[in-house]
């Protein structure tokens, strides 16, 4: 079962594993570098990028500041258009709801389009337990499902896989050899998935944005699988985080513009789909039923406080691609769902700091994430605030608190500073034996205290 919770030591253990795999390191550096370059060049031709960021921020915060109202408006309009709207307070509730809809539809096969929200509620596990087969149809997600792994990047889920690994996984499906070339790989996946689209009883997608004014859901994809999944099966289930609502249709363009540019460096993604209700009488395609499941799972608790800006996130992945820590540690270290700076902020907020205590510290606070964010979320400052909460909520270890207390007691006066640093000089050759000195000196020489402090030279 996927879980956003991450025990203290896990980040370091998983990162260490990623650092040892040369293929993973090469794939991470190449893919994040490529996505970053693409984003920079796509942004470069915007006449006033900064104004657009401000505008996008304003749209998102307007929705979040009045979330209850816009959600009600959204629900009302969606129901009027013929959709059924469900509300789920927790991941477990959402999972049961979706499984229940599939069961009611008599589903044996569910086709899924890429959705981080379905990862968040561990939907595939729930469906499997109910005896329903779920198949991921996004290429990256499909590859990971074949490998039995979780996404390591929110928009490029299989970013750490090499072409030959992918070829091997695809060959495992039907025993037919495939060359490790991009075109052959996608052609093979397409062939293997075609019947899934045709046979699926239910299609499950996420939602990029829900428009309150019209009750429409907006899906943004590049492979076209989202459109197949939402139109071919009899039933379409769309899982939407409650924060994804935008007030009006006219608010959408700026978000679409920035989402595509920030995620993949495209001006627009290949497919931008707006769905308003299921198939209407007289129409020839579309599902008979559209179910929209609104997922809270800790989000509504964030609306009022310091962390409300995190709800503005549009899941573009830009912060992952610029993050020097993500680039080396890889996505798995952050947990099975959200990764990179956005994951380091969001996961502890959704599951509680005590259940993900390492994530706020899994950053050098370089600020590249904040600079890259198209909706201007101050990610590294939120990490700083989460660190403060770790201390004030008593999650930080006693040893760490005692250490900083002793240090601050000594350094609260010049005399204490002189005395403590004098003592430290006497003891510095033992620094590498334990604690932080040991962690430092595993890969670096410990700095030596100068024979005379600057202040002593004057």
């Amino acid at each position, binding site marked *: 079962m996927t879980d956003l919770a991450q025990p203290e030591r896990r*980040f*370091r253990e998983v*990162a*260490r594993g990623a*650092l040892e795999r040369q293929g993973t390191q090469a794939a991470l550096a190449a893919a994040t570098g490529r996505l970053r370059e693409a984003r920079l060049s796509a942004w470069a031709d915007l006449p006033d990028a900064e104004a657009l960021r401000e505008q996008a921020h304003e749209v998102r915060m307007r929705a979040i500041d009045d979330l209850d109202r816009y959600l009600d408006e959204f629900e009302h309009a969606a129901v009027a258009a013929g959709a059924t709207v469900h509300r789920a307070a927790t991941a477990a509730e959402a999972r049961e709801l979706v499984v229940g809809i599939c069961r009611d539809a008599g589903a044996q096969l569910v086709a899924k389009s890429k959705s981080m929200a379905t990862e968040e509620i561990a939907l595939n596990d729930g469906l499997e337990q109910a005896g329903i087969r779920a198949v991921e149809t996004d290429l990256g997600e499909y590859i990971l499902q074949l490998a039995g792994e979780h996404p390591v990047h929110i928009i490029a889920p299989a970013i750490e896989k090499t072409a030959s690994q992918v070829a091997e996984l695809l060959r495992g499906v039907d025993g037919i050899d495939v060359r490790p070339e991009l075109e052959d790989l996608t052609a093979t996946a397409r062939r293997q998935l075609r019947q899934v689209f045709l046979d699926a009883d239910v299609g499950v997608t996420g939602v990029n944005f829900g428009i309150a004014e019209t009750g429409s859901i907006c899906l943004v994809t590049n492979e076209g699988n989202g459109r197949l999944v939402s139109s071919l099966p009899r039933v379409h289930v769309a899982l939407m985080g409650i924060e994804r609502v935008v007030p009006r249709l006219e608010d959408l363009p700026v978000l679409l513009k920035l989402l595509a540019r920030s995620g993949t460096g495209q001006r627009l993604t290949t497919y931008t789909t707006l769905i308003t209700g299921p198939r209407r009488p007289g129409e020839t395609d579309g599902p008979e039923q559209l179910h929209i499941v609104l997922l809270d799972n800790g989000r509504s608790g964030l609306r009022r406080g310091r962390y409300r800006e995190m709800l503005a996130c549009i899941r573009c992945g830009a912060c992952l691609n*610029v993050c*020097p*820590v993500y680039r*080396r*540690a890889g996505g798995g270290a952050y947990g099975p769902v959200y990764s990179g700076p956005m994951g380091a902020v969001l996961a502890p907020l959704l599951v509680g700091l005590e259940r993900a205590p*390492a994530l*706020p*510290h*899994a*950053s*050098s*606070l*370089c*600020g*590249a994430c904040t*600079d890259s964010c198209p909706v201007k979320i101050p990610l590294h400052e939120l990490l*700083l605030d*989460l*660190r*403060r909460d*770790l*201390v*004030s909520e008593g999650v*930080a270890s006693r040893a*760490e*608190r005692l250490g*900083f*207390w002793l*240090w*601050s*007691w000594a*350094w*609260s*006066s*010049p005399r204490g*500073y002189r005395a403590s*640093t004098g003592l430290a000089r006497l003891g510095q050759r033992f620094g590498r034996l334990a604690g*932080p000195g040991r*962690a*430092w000196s*595993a*890969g*670096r*020489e*410990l*700095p*030596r*205290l*100068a024979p*005379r*402090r*600057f*202040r002593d*030279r*004057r």
Partner: protein
Amino acid sequence: MSIPSRVQLFATCLGDLICPDAVADAETLLRDSGFDVEFPGGQVCCGQPAFNAGHHGAARRVARTFAASFSRAAPVVVPSGSCATMLTRYLPELLGCEPFDVWELSAFLDRHDARVAASNAGRTLAYHDSCHLLRELGVSEQPRRLLERSGATLRPLERPDLCCGFGGTFSVRQPEVSVAMADDKLASAGDAEALVTADPGCLLQLRGRRERRGEGPRVVHLATALARGVA
């Protein structure tokens, strides 16, 4: 614009304890440019190590030493981008006090058209942006301009945006990732004679890694590079 003749030098804890030569070089640069340099004796540390780790109480206790020793009547010059960030962006709120007139060394020297000797004539150097100096204070052109005025040719780093991996307690909480980030930075300096940085934190990290590996460019503080050249 009236030129302030008096400045207060904040050595920072790392400067005072680990690289006092760089602080002395900063003082030399300021004096050579005609400033009276004061060194307030009660100074200790800005509190950043605790602040960035979330320990605001501890940070406050230490940061008070700064507020008690420095005056708002003259600019405070700091040979460290991250300490300058702490002092300008966070300390006033942490202590509930009025801000100080804080300048990072290269921003101050550049602003006052400091005299820079041709100490690096004919050398090829690489400059590493410390993250806080670059992103929080927006200082990137100034140190480069000063290095060029010292005669150096600057070799651009492949990815100047990447952090060196120090990040305070990050360096010991995630030592493997931190070291890998240092390797990336050292490798990106290519054939430059030295990698110059304006932050003692980056200096510690990159120098520590270089010494362990026994290869890579020498890592030099900006103040030293400007005052005496990288040799």
